């Protein structure tokens, strides 16, 4: 038993961190007067080259042959750098393509050519071999495909399946958002939860990404508290600020430990994996939302401006909360499960 990354995993982590901090600094999202949309898709080919788009895919499918533990190391860094959540579409679509033996699509994904958006339910939907319902399409405007999932399973659709999608400004304005609708539509690929653990994997990946958000907000607050002076000393020396930062550190640690635990459980399979994946998603999005809000407060008026990155973490945390079901529905699901002692 060891929850720390092994040397190979540390290498992956280091590579992800150094690539992303060089190629995708958070400042890229801070143009002069606010911005709609982002250019993160330009990163996909480079991430592909580094193997990050096929981390969890078997080598036979063009992947690296690793699994969820390695993927969460990457996703934590993706969260820290606020990379477009469209990457989750790539990861999930690759798994779908691999399981349904679609080498052309697989190749397009693993090479970084494909664009895959996310389709997240607006209210109750039916997802299965025949699918219907209202969806939000996230980061799908320039994508040919979109991935959707519920507890029942995961599906890949053509974005045109969603009809005349309607553009809407997203609270997180660096993401494209559309409303779309499926009417008795057959997905290009459908894998039920019984046949594959994609929904659970999605939850753990979101948890890792959200942990990255929570950690970045914590670090941003602590760094500011060390340098910002009021009343002749750094604000971090005041207990009100110090304890606020300490609470952020606790939440981030809680989120990461549970995410690691869940990643290993899901990778190993077994009956408790659903429980731990749900707990991870719940704790990590909770940490991301709370830490983002606290970070704004620590920054004072500056935290309320678009000049600061503080709001970016808050908005992305809300997106992560709604992806795969918000805190309320996560809790409802978790209390319905058997104990996992």
């Amino acid at each position, binding site marked *: 038993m060891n929850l720390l990354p092994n040397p190979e995993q540390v290498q992956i982590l280091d590579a992800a961190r150094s690539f992303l901090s060089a190629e995708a600094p958070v400042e890229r999202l801070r143009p002069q007067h606010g911005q709609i949309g982002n250019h993160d898709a330009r990163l996909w080919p480079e991430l592909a080259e580094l193997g990050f788009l096929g981390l969890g895919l078997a080598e036979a499918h063009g992947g690296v042959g690793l699994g969820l533990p390695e993927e969460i190391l990457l996703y934590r860094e993706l969260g820290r750098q606020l990379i477009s959540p469209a990457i989750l579409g790539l990861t999930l679509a690759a798994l779908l393509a691999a399981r349904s033996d679609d080498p052309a699509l697989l190749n397009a994904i693993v090479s970084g050519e494909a664009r895959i958006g996310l389709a997240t339910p607006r*209210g109750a939907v039916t997802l299965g071999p025949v699918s219907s319902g209202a969806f939000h399409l996230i980061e799908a405007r320039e994508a040919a495909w979109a991935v959707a999932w519920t507890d029942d399973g995961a599906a890949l659709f053509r974005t045109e399946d969603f009809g005349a999608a309607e553009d809407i400004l997203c609270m*997180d*304005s660096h993401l494209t958002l559309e409303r779309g609708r499926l009417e008795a539509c057959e997905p290009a690929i459908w894998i039920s939860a019984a046949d594959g653990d994609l929904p659970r994997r999605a939850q753990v990946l979101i948890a890792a990404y959200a942990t990255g958000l929570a950690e970045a907000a914590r670090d941003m607050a602590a760094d500011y508290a060390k340098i910002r002076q009021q009343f002749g000393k750094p604000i971090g020396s005041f207990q*009100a600020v110090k304890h606020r930062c300490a609470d952020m550190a606790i939440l981030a640690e809680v989120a990461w430990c549970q995410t690691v635990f869940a990643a290993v459980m899901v990778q190993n399979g077994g009956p408790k994996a659903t429980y731990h994946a749900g707990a991870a998603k719940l704790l990590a999005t909770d940490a991301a939302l709370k830490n983002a809000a606290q970070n*704004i407060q620590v920054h004072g*008026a500056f935290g309320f401006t*678009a*000049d600061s990155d*503080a709001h970016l973490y808050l908005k992305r945390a809300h*997106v992560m909360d709604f992806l795969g079901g918000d805190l309320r529905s996560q809790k409802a699901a978790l209390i319905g499960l058997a104990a996992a002692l």
Partner: protein
Amino acid sequence: MNLDFTAEDEAFRAEARAWLNDNVPRGPRPTEGQAMRAFDLAWQRAQYDGGWAGVSWPTEYGGRGLELTQQLIWYEEYARSGAPEAALLFVGMNHAAPTIMARGNEAQKAFHLPKILKGEVAWSQGFSEPNNGSDLAGLTTKAVIDGDHLVVNGSKIWTSNAHLSDWQELLVRTDPAAPKHKGISWAICDMTLPGIELRPIMIMTAPGHHHFNQVFYTDVRIPLANVVGEINDGWSVAMSTLGFERGTASMSEQIRYGVVLEKLVDMARERLGEAALKYDEIGQRLAQLRAEHAAVRAMTYMIVSRSAGGGAMGSEASLMRAFFSQLQQRTRRIALDIIGSDSLELPDVDPWIRPYLRSFSTTIAAGTSEIQRNIIGERVLGLPR
């Protein structure tokens, strides 16, 4: 202890209600820019023409000179009528004018007060500086006397709507050698003076939403005639303003929030069903919020009761401010849980998401919740500094 309004008060309430019913602008208030400025000034002018501008202003300055109870009634009716906030005029009506009344000279009063009251001008506040937010008295924007002018150099920040304002209440350091509270002066700054430059600061609510500014002053020459109170006595002048700010002007906001909450209750009933709401975590939180918003009204009434007869707002008022600023955030937050995933959308007509994002400022503006709780601990409970 009673909630009985006098016949006179009830008549006043009826009059206010009738006037508001006939005169409140029905279109949506533009949320920024010149359109917002024009809207707010026009609505102020309409109130002035109707005899309703400056309910708290003494009659000698053209105000209505209402007792606190009738001010309360006015703000209750104002909020219930759905009248717009007119936030652009807040600084002029509730900071600058009361300060000029209290500490200004006759020329300053005669020139500025009517313009403010009639909705001819907008004011902004030049207090906070990049390195001094909570610690206001540490400000460093410098002014030296040169003949009959102050020459100002430095920078102010978080000046709401400076880009839409004609005048500014400006705090400057006129004696750097004095103890920090003793070398400050309070001046009226014409925003068209040469040497003033603005840097717009966008806020987090939505892309391109311009609200704050940083203001840079380079050799800006303000006539000494525009100093309110004595040179170097500006801290005490500013404190009289802050006292007023924390007075009755926020009443309508407190009352308005009760209406906001009931919209949320209606939405939750529709989404979850009235029966299911009882023990649902959303229903339980809404019930708590209902009780808390009821208490905000009770606290407002208590503050009015304590202050009636001319007493100043006690430090107990700080309890309500601290409570209300956090209550606003809780109220705005639950909207997202009720709406669900459509909260990701920022629609053009948006009663919920932008206001939610905006609510992050309530525990920062006008004293962070940390500073407010210091004040409560020290002034209300007598704890050591």
